């Protein structure tokens, strides 16, 4: 499942970068993101993702690895976790790009590839997809809100 969105924000890439590495504020943008911890700055994070998908309650402890980054232009990260109860594995590859756009503004783009494997994938793929779509829409809304405050 691929998701992406783009937004032009009236602020500089530097200020957006400051928000992006503020994990508490970033976590607040991600629906269901709980207990986020920085293990190693700009390298390794852990978090618990909680979601209710149809009749299932998922709790996925996830490791988030920052694979590469260039301040303040891009971050490539990969996250993976498994819900024990449903035996469902979730992996996300995330590419975030920030580029200057005109006078003092920035183009902010997110591209995410989500893979779901395990029991929930066979039982409720379409439900998961819908939920993920909703979450990305919500993520987009929240991050724009946060960025508006930058």
């Amino acid at each position, binding site marked *: *499942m691929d998701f992406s969105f783009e937004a032009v924000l009236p602020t500089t890439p530097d200020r957006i970068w400051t928000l992006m590495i503020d994990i508490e504020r970033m976590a607040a943008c991600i629906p269901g993101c709980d207990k986020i911890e920085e293990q190693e700055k700009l390298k390794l994070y852990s978090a618990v993702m909680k979601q209710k998908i149809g009749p299932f309650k998922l709790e996925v402890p996830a490791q988030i690895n920052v694979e590469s980054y260039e301040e303040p232009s891009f971050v490539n990260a990969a996250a993976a976790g498994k819900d*024990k109860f449903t*035996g*469902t*594995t979730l992996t996300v590859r995330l590419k975030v790009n920030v580029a200057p756009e005109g006078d003092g503004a920035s183009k902010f783009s997110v591209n995410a590839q989500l*893979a*779901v*494997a*395990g*029991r929930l*994938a*066979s*039982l409720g*793929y*379409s439900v998961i997809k819908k939920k993920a779509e909703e979450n990305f829409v919500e993520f987009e809304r929240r991050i724009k809100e946060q960025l508006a405050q930058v």
Partner: protein
Amino acid sequence: MSSRAPSPHPDHVDKVTGRTEYITDVEVPGMVHGKILRSPHPHAVIKGIDASAALEMPGVIAVLTGADVAALNNHWGLYLKDRPVIAIDRVRYVGEPVAMVAAADERIAEEALEAISVDYEPLPFVTDATEAIEASAPLVHETHDTVKDFYFKGEAKPVAGTNIFQRYNYEHGDVEKAFAQADRCFEAKYEFPMIFHYAMEPHCVIASFQSDGLTLWSCGQSPTAIQKVLSRVFGMPLARIRIISPNVGGGFGGKASVKIDPLVAALAWKARRPVRVCLSVSESMLTARRLSASIRVKTGVRNDGTILAKSVSVLMNGGAYADTGPAVAVKAANRAIGPYRIPNLKLESMAAYTNTVPGAAFRSIGGPQAVWASESQMDEIAEALRLDPLEIRNRNLLRRGEHVRPDLRPIDVEMGEAMDIATREMTQLRASDSGSKTHRGTALGISDPGIMAVSSVLLRLKIDGSVAVVSNSVEIGQGVREVLRRLTAEQLKQPVDVVEVLTPDTAIAPFDWGTGASRSSLMMGLAIADAAADIRRQIADIAAIVLEVDPQSVELCEGGIAIGNRKKTFGELLHAYFGIDSGELVSIGRVSPYSNAGKLAQAPLFWETAAGQCAVAVDEDTGEISVRHYVSVADVGRVVNRAAAEGQDEGATVMGLGHTLSEELVYQDGQPINATMIDYHVPTIDEVPENFVTVLIESGTGPGLGGMRGMGEGAILPVAPAVANALAAGYGARIRELPLTPERVWRAIRDRKER
């Protein structure tokens, strides 16, 4: 003969009252239960498996993983030795068995699966056949290890360094030249999806290693093939492996050849206990499915509709392991020819590995895919040439005795007769339903059954006149036991109710190739005739000794023999012969390619055919198709059990309505996303046509007893194109991709209106 008419299905009362014994009802002393941990990844390397926590759970007896089967001949296959007994270092599809638990009960086994931790490294995967044959595609298998004459005659022709595991080509005439000379050429591609067999009984096997060898209670349709594969895997002689085949709750090819038997046997071997494994329906969906196909058909015709040339190019999605896919690919090409005179013909077929559930045999292998393409196109040509669909077919139809292909047996039925009957019956049905708006669609299907003429049977005539039939023909719900019972009674001139057909057991029943390809009534019938002739010879010889009569004068009659007006019961005769009031006569009947003066050797043994005609109504607001009337006509040569034969024909048609209207196994991101009973919709009584007419022509021209042909598969062939042709006739909406879901139909009708 008995005056009492035999019941068409003597087992029905037992079935509906739950008394019929299936494998799941079998209890073996000391038996434990197995469950399977399956891969959640479409393609991955197994870096490690930790089962220590599972093994510590109370009630867990053993865990089987790939590491355990290193000591075995751990890969097997029917055409390509590509399948590990259990995943060893790599998984190739979502659902592939990775580990198994044997435990005191199913609940403990299921819970223990959760405690097994598998470390995977995902690999690039491919689930689409077109993508799988591209040079850049990830390889599902690096090498191709073919086996020859292992199950079917011949071998696969894979392409090294690619995912292509079978290639097939055939040509007669000069197709390109004929296309150049044709008034019109029509070319289109038709798509047929993956379909699940959906037998009511999921796969179920019990395996037990004892001092005298390995015994399996298997749901497999081919007990001797299972025996052979197990013999190779475990390095055991065939004689030490016994396969017992109780009643099977539907097969349809999903239990043909070999499926979960080596896996269950390996767990029993590891656990050192008898193990029962009964899959859920969802797990059966991850075990086998029909090969999906993209079929490109090009046909060159004169303006009057006469076919000058045809080329067929088939690409099949064979899944992660080849199974019998190589045979399916060949048959899909052959079955796309149709019952028509085609002076210039070119067939090409390929089957490719993908990271999906292994493709397998399914009722008329490759046939529905092929006929979907070729018979849809016949109507497209008719429409373009402004010809009636029946007229264009009639213009090109082969007559009995003409060749479909010069190298195959000539067609042995009159397809024109079948089509005429279908038309007549449908005209009557529609006249009786003049109030509703329906549209008619027609399709014809022919198939060349891949029957191996290798069968044998034992008949045991007891001193009390009862007869035991001992064969490996598996009762999969098709009614074979009743057919064998009736044919035995007929051949020995005894009442049906003295004949018992025993549960197949390879320890006592002689070799038979297997139950499938519409072969069992025919082949086993011929074997019964051979065995009955031997019983008659033995009886005549005994009568000559005991009664001092000319053996030529001895006739069988009900309960015994007659020499003119003089009668003796079997008991009287055998008592006098053996000297005690006990004993039996045993005979074996055999069929081989050399039987009947070699007439069984030419392929196909017969042509299995069907003419289908439907009348459909469409809800234009929702796109929902309702098949109101259906007529199915086939020349089956001879009907032995009418109710059961008609049931087979109706069942095949309704099964065809599944892939026509709703069935499709869907993959997204490497995951089968609808492999559950909730999301995968098979036809219910709601989809069954209100009026259904089956006409079985008894021409007596087949190669079996009384001129019978095989049947039970043909009726599935014309269903999808007949419905699509009716839709096109009524709405001008031509859909070339199955299933004809309401959405697809609604969009097609809307697009047509907007044009």
